[in-house]
């Protein structure tokens, strides 16, 4: 039997009639201004919650599924979202994002971030141009080298593109806690503007080195897998949200998990992925209200470790 996903767990909890107390209800109304963080090297502000697109936007040609993703993206922009992250590795996600961008409104704040995921300079150039076409963009706000693939080759291309004004920021990514040693060396010595890696309430390895290093080097940090690909919901969402979560304006577990991530001072933006409008609403609600301080963060960790 497969593990239940967030939707299944929430439906089960709602069925017990305990929605309000168990934090499974809809997102609270926005409390205060949109939370943003500055990109260290430019000062430009980004909302702390962005959107990933691994699996969720890989829907091929299906018209009904694409229409659903248009709604998800519309909710994202309506709730103040800006950074969208994708990659050629994600199947049709880039094409679907481009399709959706043509159909949504309120998208002026879009911060388009994708990746180059191939070997060789020639294939890299070809892939990046293809991404521009798929997104319908003349230039990206951020191009990242995906999972360090042929990174030295692509680094040189990205530096050239930045110099030519073809690209605004360059970055590099890893995930699942892989290759942190290599990644740290690159962060310390290479001229990237952004780095992306995994960090969530269970996977906190990045606290030891990568996050402090990013802060020290003035690198913007995008966090992937903030929910451990749904794993956090599988493990914890059947429990009631603690009452004190209201102190940081959390009414659902998505806010709880995301606020932990984005409250780290070195984090610029987290990029949860979803295919559901209601989940997008919950995710974006983490970009409003109070964030936990150090003491509250410790309390949050202690709480989930007790579950």
């Amino acid at each position, binding site marked *: 039997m497969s593990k239940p996903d967030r939707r299944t767990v929430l439906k089960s909890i709602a069925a017990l009639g305990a929605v309000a107390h168990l934090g499974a209800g809809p997102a609270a109304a926005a409390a205060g201004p949109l939370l943003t963080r500055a990109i260290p090297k430019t000062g430009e502000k980004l909302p702390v919650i962005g959107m990933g697109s*691994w*699996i969720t936007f*890989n*829907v*091929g*040609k*299906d018209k009904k*599924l694409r229409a659903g993703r248009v709604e998800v993206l519309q909710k994202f922009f309506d709730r103040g979202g800006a950074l969208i992250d994708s990659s*050629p*590795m*994600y*199947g*049709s996600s880039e*094409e679907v994002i481009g399709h959706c961008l043509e159909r949504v409104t309120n998208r002026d704040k879009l911060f388009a971030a994708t990746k180059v995921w191939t070997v060789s300079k020639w294939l890299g150039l070809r892939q990046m141009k293809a991404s521009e076409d798929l997104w319908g963009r003349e230039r990206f706000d951020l191009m990242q080298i995906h999972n360090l693939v042929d990174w030295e080759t692509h680094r040189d291309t990205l530096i050239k593109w930045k110099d030519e004004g073809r690209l605004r920021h360059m970055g590099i990514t890893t995930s699942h806690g892989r290759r942190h040693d290599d990644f740290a060396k690159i962060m310390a010595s290479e001229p990237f503007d952004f780095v992306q890696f995994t960090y969530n309430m269970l996977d906190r390895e990045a606290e030891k080195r990568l996050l402090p290093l990013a802060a020290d080097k003035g690198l913007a940090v995008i966090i992937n897998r903030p929910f451990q*690909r749904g794993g956090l919901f599988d493990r914890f969402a059947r429990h009631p949200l603690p009452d004190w979560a209201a102190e940081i304006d959390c009414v659902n577990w998505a806010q709880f998990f995301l606020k932990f991530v984005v409250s780290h001072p070195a984090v610029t933006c987290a990029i949860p992925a979803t295919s559901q409008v209601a989940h997008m609403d919950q995710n974006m609600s983490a970009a409003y209200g109070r964030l936990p301080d150090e003491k509250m963060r410790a309390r949050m960790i202690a709480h989930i470790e007790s579950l």
Partner: protein
Amino acid sequence: MLPFTPEVFFSLFEHYNGAIWPAQVIAYALGLAVIATMFMPFPGSDRVVSAVLAGFWLWNGAVYHLEYFATINFSAYAFGLLFIIEAALLAWTGVLRGRIAFRLRTDASGWCGAAFILVAMVLYPLAAHLLGHGWPQAAMFGVAPCPTVIFTLGVLLLAHGRTPWHLMAIPVLWALMGGTAPFLLGITEDLSLLGAGLVGAVMAVLRNRRLAFHETG
């Protein structure tokens, strides 16, 4: 982890089956022709069987994998190449060199081969229908990898003489890879693919050993 959901996978098949119609009918006609030649072989019929198999593998590689599946799964580029290589091997060995003949047999591997053909053409699509993803979402014989691989394994087990391992290797490999679909995508009928790969490999080994023993006395 796969980069797509089961919903997207079945949607892709629906779109693919619609786009290539009536190739599925032609594939079945060719499959029946292959079976007919085994009952009534004629001069050159073995090359025809190899040509049909090569054509199936080329279609699955170049059309299904590279044109359709690659839109949702980056691994499809590698799969497509694998299928095209198998097509080339079948064409080289069976069509150009005429080095393989196919005959119905009543030994264990013969029955096994016949059973795989029945599974590929009849039982697999029936199971898909009963499990809720029949036409147009079903993987159809000849134009989709899984039933085509099962069919190929069946036909190769009916090869006269030793089962050709250089032609078995890629189908067995695909059967092991594709045999994860029941667990990753809920495509239960692909358990038959996994079974065909494992049983087919064992049958081929046993048959080749038995023939080698007889040859050496």
